[in-house]
């Protein structure tokens, strides 16, 4: 019978991908469907260079696919993907320190609501002004929806530290965005 892969949990999908059956590709595509946006969002926030974002995005999923095939250990897929994306981004930063203009960055919004689009653009640009050590946990928390435990594990921090950094990022963002948000809320 035909399968609705969206009904399967990650663990089952991983098993199917590992099985090398004819369903393997479809199961992997379902996993991709679930997490590609998270990975892409992370890469876009961290890198800003659209070409590099695409390279790293692709590399993340290729590595993930290889890992599934070679390793039978069950993994937290989203946390794993973000971790791989983070490592690739850090490697890129180490190799390449050039400044990337924020103006060249297209988020690809499709909202018809202009105000909402404007709000997101302003927030996005403001996030970019945050110190990296606050920015990263903040993105993981607010964009990726990771738990503090997962953030702590990925960023190699204590949970308390992760919480504090997210809180400071929020505080700093509010400070920077206050005039704009005040008008927006009112």
């Amino acid at each position, binding site marked *: *019978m*035909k*399968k*609705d*892969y*969206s*009904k*399967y*949990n*990650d*663990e*089952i999908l991983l098993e199917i991908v590992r099985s090398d059956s004819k369903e393997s*590709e*479809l199961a*992997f*595509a*379902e996993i*991709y*469907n*679930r997490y*590609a*946006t*998270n990975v*892409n*969002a992370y890469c876009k926030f961290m890198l800003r260079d659209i070409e590099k974002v*695409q390279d790293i*995005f*692709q590399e993340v*999923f*290729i590595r993930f*696919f290889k890992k599934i095939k070679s390793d039978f250990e069950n993994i937290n*897929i*989203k*946390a794993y993907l973000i971790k791989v994306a983070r490592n690739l981004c850090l490697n890129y930063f180490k190799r390449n320190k050039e400044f990337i203009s924020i103006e060249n960055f297209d*988020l*690809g*919004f*499709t*909202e018809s609501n202009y105000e*909402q689009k404007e*709000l*997101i653009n302003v*927030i996005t640009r403001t996030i970019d002004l945050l110190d990296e050590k606050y920015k990263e946990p903040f993105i993981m928390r*607010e*964009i*990726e*929806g*990771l*738990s503090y435990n*997962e953030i702590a594990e990925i960023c190699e921090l204590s949970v308390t530290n992760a*919480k504090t950094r*997210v*809180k400071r990022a*929020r505080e700093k*963002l*509010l400070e920077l965005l206050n005039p704009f*948000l*005040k008008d*927006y*809320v009112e």
Partner: protein
Amino acid sequence: MDKFQLISDFIDGELEPLLESQLFLELSSDDELRQKLKNTILLKSALASNLSAFAPSANQTQKLFSALGFKDVLNPPTSTGKIENQGKFLNATKYLMILLLGGFLMFLISRYFTDDIPEKIITKSDNSKHIYDLANQIPPIPIIKNYENEQKLTKSIGNKKNETHLIANESYDYEEFVNAETIQTIMNSEHKIIIESDLFSLQNFTSNTMIELPFVIRNSYPSTRIGKFSIELFNSHYFSSEEPTISPSKNAIFNNSAIKVVYDLSDNITLGAEARQETFYQVFEGMDEFGIINTYRQQPNFTTIGAIGRYKITNWYNFIPFIELNVGTNNAGLVYRGTTGITYSPYHNFNIILNLEYSNLNFMHQQNWFNSNKFGINYGFGIKF
């Protein structure tokens, strides 16, 4: 604890009840703090609700799947970063168009195979084999109409009105996955925040949003899209077990056509109902008003309403062989059918169906039971809703 820490923990859903009371107390008297809470919530909800803006482009997806050597995944998107419904082969308009087109085709086919000859309803022969036709007579069995005790029979056999009954039925489709627990443990980080106060009200924003990406997975059928009901339209060619010696009576519109409404009870079991316009070649004996035993032959139209039970044997590359049992009734009597056939699903919500069928009409005349048998080839299509 500093005041913004309270807000931050509250937003994360991790503020202890005691501290929550403290936060509300502070909020009631601190305008600045209220503003911060509003802004924090706005910030969080804006980011969470716009994750879709970060969906990878179709190009990225295609590139990745090409790099991985995937062949079974399609990439037909036309735009980027947009929540789209391209996984649906048929939208509502297309469904309607196909149904209308299908109905029209059935009509044409049924008309093409319909005889326009004058009514030649019944052939009667007595034991001396004297045969004569009763042309242009309605109802078709006038021979028995004078018998009081056969009033029921005149109702049970005769010229049939054209009726089509659409039978509503429940339906269903997908296999339930046994281990359908939380999609991922990481999703446990999702928080629902409901704040109700005189300050403002914000409900149910989440820190995580599942996004649909702009590509299609072949054979992936999201349950929210495809239901378990199907409508199937058929046309048939019949072959009577006994060579008819009389033409069919004037055929009805949609003669030899059927409409079925079916419901997928499980992956293998389908239940449903059908309405079918058909003819049966009937041969039966009876005594006329002169006390002569006659053999009657007629081929009237029937509208048969039936219940269907279908067992799908397997799914082999979208070819699904099945067997089907059908019990129905029409004005003459009970109809039993056994069917075997195959369904091909080029798309997840569209089937092409071909089957072979044996039908038996069991009817009574003058307290005697008779059978009429025929074989049929049915071909049609089904649309799943």
